[in-house]
C-alpha cells in the first residue's frame, strides 16, 4: 500500500466520480435501449427499474413528474428506449440513469406520429370547444360503433338498459384494432350520419395496450368524428388512455361504461323529478282550491245567501219603521194643534164679558143699546139698562158724579 497517495473520504471519491460523469456530454443526454425489469412504482410516485440486455444491467429512476406523463404502463419484460442523464447517486456510490422519457420498443415512430397528428389537428381547430355539440338529454336512438364481441358493448348495453331502457341501441359492428379498424370506424360514423340512424353516437373499445387502442389515434377516425352531425362520445380504453378521438369527440368518457353513464339519464332520478312535479302540481292545486273554498265559506256566512226570505223580511221591517215614523209625526202635529186650540179657547173664555159679570159686575147700555163707558156720558133723567149675569134692569139716572179729579190727586 502506497501511503504517499492522498487519502480521500468516501464522499470525496464519489463526488470526484460524479464530476467526471457529469462532464461527459453523451452521458448528460443519453438514449439507451433495453428490457425493463424489476419495475416498481413507489408511493411517492417515483418509478424505479432496471434496464438490461443479455449481458448487462443499468439502474434507472424516473421521477413522478415525468412518470405521470407516460402514455403506457411500463411492465417488466417490456422492450423500451429510455432517455435521460447518467450520474452518480453519491449516497449509494452508484451511478444510474435519471430517466425523463420512456418509449416502448418499436413504438417510437407511432408515438412521434401521434404527437405530430395531435399538434396538427389541434392547430386546425379540431379540438376546439366551440365545435363541441351538446349531447341530447334523452337520446331516443344510440348508435354504438364498436366491436360486437368484447366486454365493452355488453358493459354499455347493461348500463344503458339499467339507466334508460327507452333508448334504442343500434350496434354498428366494426373492428377496433388492426389495419382495417380506422377505415371501418370512420366509415360507420359517416354511415350513421348519412342515414341519421341515431341522435347520439358512442364509439370506443375496452382497454388494451397502446397498440390495441391505436385505431382511435388515426386521422381518418378523428376527421369522421369531427364531421359528424350527430354528437359523439369517445370511450377508449381506461382512464389514463387519451386518444386523438377523445380530443375530437364532443365528449370524452374514460371507459365504455362511463360513456353509458354520460349518454343517458338515470331513470330513478327522472322518476324522482316526476314525483316532484306531481307533488308540486298537487300542492298548488290544493292550495288554490282551499283558497276558493275559503271565499265560498265567507260568502255562505252572509245571511242573504243563506235565507232567501231574509231580504224580503228586511224590506218589510224597513217599511214598518218608516210607517211608524210617519204615524208618530202625524200624531205630534195633531196634538200640537189641539193644544193651541185649547189655549185659544181659554183666552177667549177669559175675555168673555159674561165671565166678568159672573164676578158681580154689571154692564150699562144706553137706550140705543150702546155701552156706557163713562159717567160723563150720562145726564140725570137718562135711561140706562143694567145687564147682570142672570138678567137686566131698566133704570133711570138720578144724579151724575164725576170723580176723575179725586182719583188723580
Amino acid at each position, binding site marked *: 500500500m502506497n501511503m504517499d497517495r492522498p487519502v480521500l473520504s468516501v464522499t470525496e471519491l464519489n463526488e470526484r466520480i460524479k464530476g467526471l460523469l457529469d462532464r461527459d456530454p453523451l452521458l448528460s443526454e443519453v438514449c439507451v435501449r433495453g428490457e425493463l425489469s424489476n419495475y416498481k412504482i413507489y408511493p411517492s410516485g417515483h418509478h424505479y427499474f432496471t434496464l438490461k440486455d443479455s449481458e448487462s444491467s443499468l439502474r434507472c429512476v424516473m421521477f413522478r413528474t415525468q412518470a405521470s406523463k407516460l402514455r403506457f404502463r411500463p411492465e417488466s419484460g417490456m422492450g423500451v428506449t429510455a432517455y435521460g442523464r447518467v450520474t452518480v447517486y453519491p449516497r449509494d456510490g452508484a451511478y444510474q440513469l435519471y430517466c425523463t422519457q420512456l418509449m416502448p420498443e418499436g413504438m417510437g415512430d407511432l408515438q412521434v406520429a401521434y404527437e405530430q397528428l395531435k399538434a396538427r389537428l389541434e392547430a386546425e381547430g379540431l379540438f376546439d370547444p366551440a365545435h363541441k355539440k351538446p349531447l*341530447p338529454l334523452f337520446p331516443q336512438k344510440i348508435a354504438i360503433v364498436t366491436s360486437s364481441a368484447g366486454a365493452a358493448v355488453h358493459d354499455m348495453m347493461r348500463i344503458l338498459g339499467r339507466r334508460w331502457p327507452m*333508448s334504442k341501441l*343500434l350496434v354498428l359492428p366494426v373492428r377496433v384494432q388492426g389495419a382495417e379498424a380506422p377505415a371501418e370506424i370512420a366509415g360507420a360514423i359517416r*354511415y350513421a350520419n348519412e342515414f341519421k340512424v341515431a341522435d347520439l353516437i358512442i364509439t370506443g373499445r375496452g382497454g388494451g395496450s397502446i397498440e390495441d387502442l391505436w385505431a382511435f389515434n388515426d386521422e381518418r377516425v378523428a376527421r369522421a368524428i369531427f364531421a359528424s352531425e350527430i354528437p359523439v362520445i369517445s370511450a377508449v380504453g381506461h382512464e389514463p388512455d387519451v386518444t386523438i378521438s377523445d380530443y375530437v369527440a364532443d365528449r370524452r368518457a374514460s371507459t365504455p361504461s362511463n360513456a353509458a353513464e354520460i349518454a343517458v339519464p338515470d*331513470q330513478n332520478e327522472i322518476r324522482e323529478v316526476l314525483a316532484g*312535479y306531481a307533488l*308540486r*302540481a298537487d300542492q298548488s292545486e290544493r292550495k288554490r282550491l282551499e283558497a276558493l273554498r275559503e271565499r265560498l265559506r265567507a260568502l255562505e256566512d252572509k245571511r242573504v245567501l243563506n235565507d232567501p226570505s231574509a231580504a224580503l223580511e228586511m224590506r218589510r221591517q224597513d217599511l214598518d219603521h218608516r210607517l211608524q215614523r210617519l204615524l208618530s209625526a202625524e200624531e205630534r202635529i195633531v196634538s200640537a194643534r189641539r193644544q193651541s186650540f185649547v189655549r185659544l179657547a181659554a183666552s177667549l173664555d177669559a175675555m168673555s164679558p159674561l165671565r166678568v159679570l159672573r164676578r158681580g159686575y154689571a154692564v150699562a147700555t144706553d137706550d140705543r143699546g150702546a155701552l156706557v163707558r163713562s159717567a160723563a156720558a150720562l145726564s140725570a133723567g137718562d135711561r140706562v139698562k143694567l145687564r147682570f149675569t142672570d138678567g137686566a134692569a131698566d133704570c133711570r139716572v138720578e144724579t151724575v158724579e164725576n170723580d176723575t179729579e179725586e182719583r188723580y190727586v
Partner: protein
Amino acid sequence: MSDKELSFEQSLARLDEIVRHLEKGDLPLQDSLTLFTEGTALLKRCNEMLDAAEQTVVKLKKGPDREPVELPFEDE
C-alpha cells in the same frame, strides 16, 4: 298539442311549464283545472313509459341498397 305526439323530453318540458303555471296561481279556476288534468295525464304517461320500457338492441347492417337494415343483436 296532443299527448301522443310528445316525446318523453317534450312531456317533461311541458310538465315543467304546467307546474310553473299552476304555482303562479293566477289562472282562472277552469283553466287551472284543465292544466292540472293535463299535467296528471302527462305524469301518468311518463311513468307508464318508464315502467313499460324494455331495452331494444339491434345490429345495424348496410343493406344491399346501402339502406340500413336492423338485425337481431347476437353475441359474437
